[in-house]
């Protein structure tokens, strides 16, 4: 398990740096920029009032934009969709990527159990996601002392904890789908569809209350974003983590029962012994 963990983590190192540094750079730009917005508060409020109410509702209460939590939330609200691309691609490719290319055959021919391989790779994926979040958090926190956001590093960590829970859920969803659907690409597409639909339905449900029923079934509705700086909703957080764990366990069972495909194989039949 240790070998597979290190090996997978090594393959993910580019993703950790790429995604982590990109989001950190966003933070390095956004956090100091809050002061500029705060200074222009009156003029911007007048501008926002001239926008259609429906548009404002889609993006949430824009009058909160000038509070530290509201400012952060405006930008962090769409991060799950962006970083979700990593989660969906990483999760769907964790096993199915090597399987479809035929590489898993050689790995599983070594004296390594399927359980050890599965959890070794899973642990590497989780640590990679944590690494991306940690670098991102650092980028958002490093300039806090010189801005008017008046926020501690600890408070700034909270939105990224909620984002981590979202990423793990989408990653595990993509992983489980990759072991049911005939191809990694299809699994990534299906999980990506859930990701985007979840974001839009959650946002649209602020305009159309009838959509609340559907939006409540999707992960984005339980994403606190920047509002998490005021305190984590632990029920949401642990609910998302529990759902991720269930999907991971489902994927593990599917992988144990699965016929390992050789390159080019695929089918709609559910795997079974």
């Amino acid at each position, binding site marked *: 398990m240790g070998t597979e963990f290190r090996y997978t983590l090594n393959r993910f190192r580019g993703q950790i740096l790429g995604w982590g540094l990109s989001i950190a750079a966003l933070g390095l730009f956004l956090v100091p920029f809050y002061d500029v917005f705060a200074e222009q508060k009156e003029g911007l409020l007048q501008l926002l009032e001239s926008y259609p109410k429906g548009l404002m509702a889609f993006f949430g209460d824009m009058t909160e934009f000038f509070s530290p939590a509201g400012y952060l939330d405006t930008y962090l609200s769409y991060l799950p969709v962006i970083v979700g691309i990593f989660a969906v691609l990483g999760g769907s490719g964790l096993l199915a990527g090597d399987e479809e290319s035929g590489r898993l055959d050689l*790995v*599983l021919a*070594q004296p390594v159990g399927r359980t050890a391989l599965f959890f070794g790779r899973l642990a590497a994926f989780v640590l990679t996601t944590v690494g991306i979040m940690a670098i991102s958090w650092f980028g958002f926190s490093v300039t806090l002392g010189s801005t008017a956001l008046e926020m501690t590093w600890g408070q700034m960590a909270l939105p990224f904890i909620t984002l981590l829970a979202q990423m793990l859920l989408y990653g595990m969803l993509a992983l489980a789908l990759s072991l049911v659907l005939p191809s990694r690409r299809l699994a990534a597409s299906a999980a990506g569809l859930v990701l985007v639909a979840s974001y839009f339905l959650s946002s649209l449900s602020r305009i159309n209350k009838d959509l609340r029923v559907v939006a409540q079934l999707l992960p984005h509705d339980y994403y606190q974003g920047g509002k998490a700086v005021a305190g984590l909703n632990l029920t949401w957080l642990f609910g998302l983590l529990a759902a991720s764990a269930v999907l991971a366990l489902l994927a593990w069972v599917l992988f144990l029962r699965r016929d390992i495909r*050789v390159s080019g194989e695929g089918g709609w039949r559910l795997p079974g012994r």
Partner: protein
Amino acid sequence: MPTEAALSIQGLFKSYGRVPALRGLDLEVKQGEILGFLGPNGAGKTTTIRCLLDLIRPDGGTIRVLGLDPQAQPVAVKARCGYLPGELALQDNTTVEGLLRYLSRLRGGRVDWTYVRELAGRLELDLKRPLKNLSKGNKQKVGVVQALMHRPELLLLDEPTAGLDPLMQQEVLKLLREARSNGATVFFSSHIISEVEEVAERVGIIRQGRLVEMAQVAALVHRALRRVTVRFRETVDAGALAGLPGVTVLSAEPAGVTLQVQGEMDGLIKALAAWPVVDMETVRPSLEEVFLAYYQGGPASGEVR
């Protein structure tokens, strides 16, 4: 000489959806032998080998690899086996040595690197080269090295010489013979019948998921039909030869005849002694011809001839 089979398969069934791949395969490989596994594409060779390593799960039947059930003890089985996949795919973000060290670590690091370097040297494989720069043949060499590097008790090789040039094919066959000399058992599939004939003691022929023949290579060839061409000094009535047991007249000319003979030649030779024979040529079929006989008008039911 050990008596326990290195590999034992009984009544193995495996289907992919509605497509049957193995239909009650029975097979036994003795310890310390080299057994060639012949069959065309889709006959079930790769499916059989992948079942042995628990990469795929059979629908029915029993398998014992070195006395172990691969589904119950997959790690123990794989620790004692070396495997070369038929469709070898390698990571391309590392070097040959990087991949071999990774696979070695999956084996608990119990690999003798002096032996790895020796294998690489014999196959003219540069351990420092990035995998992405390797040709198909060189990638195949990597596959051969990783299968042999931990000196396994049982080698399961799916077309081990595929993509290699003739010199390297010979070197790989030599490595297999050496492994056998050191006590290993070798079970390999191949399309190249001449190499099976060259290296294997026994051969199994699989057709449509069933074993249709299992015999010593020499016995299989010996047992098969031979073609005999006889030329006479004068015109003879060769039709009389058609009545001999196991003899069929393929073509007859005034001073010559071409016959097909199955079994012993004794009766034919005694009959020919009555005529003035100028020349007699006997062509023993290659294993290739024997093999093709199973697929070109051979027994459709898969019965052993």
